[in-house]
């Protein structure tokens, strides 16, 4: 049954305006980095490889727009049911509330991977004029910035980009779980999205408190650029733990909510 529900949730996902807007927005970043004429004047470097475009697109979107898009899409996934009034209709079927919310959690948790996979493929496609060979410089996502530390092979560059995109998507999963939790608590998608965005903005500001920093979701959003395995492990455990905590609270709360 869970598989059927996941299948249905994916079908609904593509109908969400928030998803369509996210795809358009995430297509803009690679286009800018691949074709904007003023990069040298503003940033002081030239884009010389197709592998730099997805790297730069990721760096420029991870700090701000991507977490917000993920929060809004996740909140919409549950919120659209309230808006259309279909939440009771679905729960009248022989499925448990946990199964139903689990399918939402799984699909919204997979959405960062889908969105970033789309961004990566689109970025590599629009960056074809720069070529896919080895180059002197860096991908921007793992040490050395775009200037790099010498020549980098095509394989290494692609590996760095894939690794960065996977880790970035993973770091966004707790945000999608948090947005679903807020939507469960507040009852509507708009409230859920608003609360999630507000919490993210507050978290960005709270990183000035050193002891609190490691507990903030926003502190782990740069995990994709983390070259040291030790710190990577800590961040990964923190990400997975917070995602699990948000998901469990959402499930427990949803089990006891009057529809």
């Amino acid at each position: 049954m869970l598989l059927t529900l996941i299948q249905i949730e994916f079908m609904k996902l593509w109908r969400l305006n928030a998803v369509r807007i996210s795809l358009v927005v995430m297509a803009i970043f690679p286009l800018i980095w691949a074709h904007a004429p003023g990069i040298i004047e503003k940033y002081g470097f030239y884009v010389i490889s197709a592998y730099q475009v997805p790297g730069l697109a990721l760096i420029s979107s991870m700090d701000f727009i991507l977490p917000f898009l993920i929060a809004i899409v996740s909140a919409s996934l549950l919120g659209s049911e309230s808006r259309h009034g279909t939440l009771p209709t679905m729960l009248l079927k022989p499925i448990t509330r946990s199964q139903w919310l689990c399918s939402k959690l799984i699909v919204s948790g997979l959405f960062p991977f889908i969105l970033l996979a789309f961004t990566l493929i689109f970025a590599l496609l629009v960056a074809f004029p720069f070529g896919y060979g080895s180059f002197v410089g860096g991908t921007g996502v793992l040490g050395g910035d775009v200037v790099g530390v010498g020549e980098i092979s095509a394989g290494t560059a692609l590996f760095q980009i894939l690794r960065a995109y996977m880790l970035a998507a993973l770091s966004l999963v707790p945000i999608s779980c948090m947005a679903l939790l807020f939507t469960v608590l507040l009852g509507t998608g708009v409230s859920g999205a608003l609360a999630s965005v507000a919490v993210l903005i507050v978290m960005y500001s709270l990183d000035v408190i050193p002891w609190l920093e490691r507990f903030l979701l926003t502190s782990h959003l740069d995990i994709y650029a983390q070259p040291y395995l030790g710190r990577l492990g800590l961040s990964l455990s923190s990400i997975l733990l917070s995602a699990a905590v948000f998901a469990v609270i959402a499930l427990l709360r949803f089990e006891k909510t009057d529809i």
Partner: protein
Amino acid sequence: MIALKRKSPLNTGNKLKLPSGLKKKTKSESGSDVDTGQLDAGLNYSGSAISVDNVSKRYGLRPVIRDLNIKVKAGEVYALVGPNGSGKTTIIRLMTGLAFPSSGKVNLLGIDPIRDPKVKKHLGAVVEAPAAFYPYMTGRQNLKLHAKLIGNIGKERIAEVLDQVELSNAAERKVGVYSLGMRQRLGLAAAILAKPDILILDEPASGMDPLSLHLVHKVLQDSAKAGAAVFISTHHLDEVAEYCTKVGILEEGRLIDEVNLSQRRDRFRVVVDKKPEALAALKVLPFIKTVISEADSIVIDLASNDDLAKVSTVLSNAGVSILELSPDIFNLRAYYRERMNSNATIQTTNQNTGQNTGQNTSTDSETT
């Protein structure tokens, strides 16, 4: 034992597949417990397909439903009537497991729908008016989605229910462009998709034109005839009075009255030339349950409508001429108005004398 009366894709024969934990255990030859996996449905609920026992619901400190008891048996149509805000929709949400009772219990086929949602395989319900569907999908696609979640429902059955609610021509249109009445009919189609043993509908006739209204009532009657327990909330008193088995009158979360309409349908009014002789002759007949003498007529309550012919024979033998014999039509609308007014008077009196009005004043109107 009350067994489910009909076959459905989910209910084959008289066996109801029980959710885990509720399966009957029998002793094997070796004496150990054996899980039979299937069990007669009748063994698991005592007569009522829908059973609401002492249910109360509070939102914060505000009581919405107060100590409610409702039973609906297979084949019955129960209509809940009451003013807006009296708690009809809350009761339906409690019955379908969407809301949690503050106290008391709700059982469908003897199973708590919150504890074990698998029992909802046997439930068809619409809890909102108009029924809610995904507006970007067509009517047929929405029903396919419902069928997928219920399981074991083919394309033919979807086409059949669309035809039944006269939506075959609009099946490929997106629900977003459906009228209120069309949505209601699609809701009905979704509810009867699995030929459920229990049908619970919140204001199924809301927003319908007279023709569609007739269609809805026909579907409800057919479902009851096929053995389903039907529960509806409605404001259409005249229509429901024609075929409902029972009507519950709800006010401020309390069931203030319950009228057994099926018994009322066996009542006849006789006007005769010799009333005392007629009364004497009728009172001794075994197939007449009640004889009520009124100012200018006699009201008789027959055990069955088939016995009507015998009445004229008996009266004729007693030398009584029948001047008029007609069904004693129960005016639900008038009764409802009267009941609501009398309840309002009782409440005002109690408030003036400082008495508690929280008690259930439900009575069996058969004796009134």
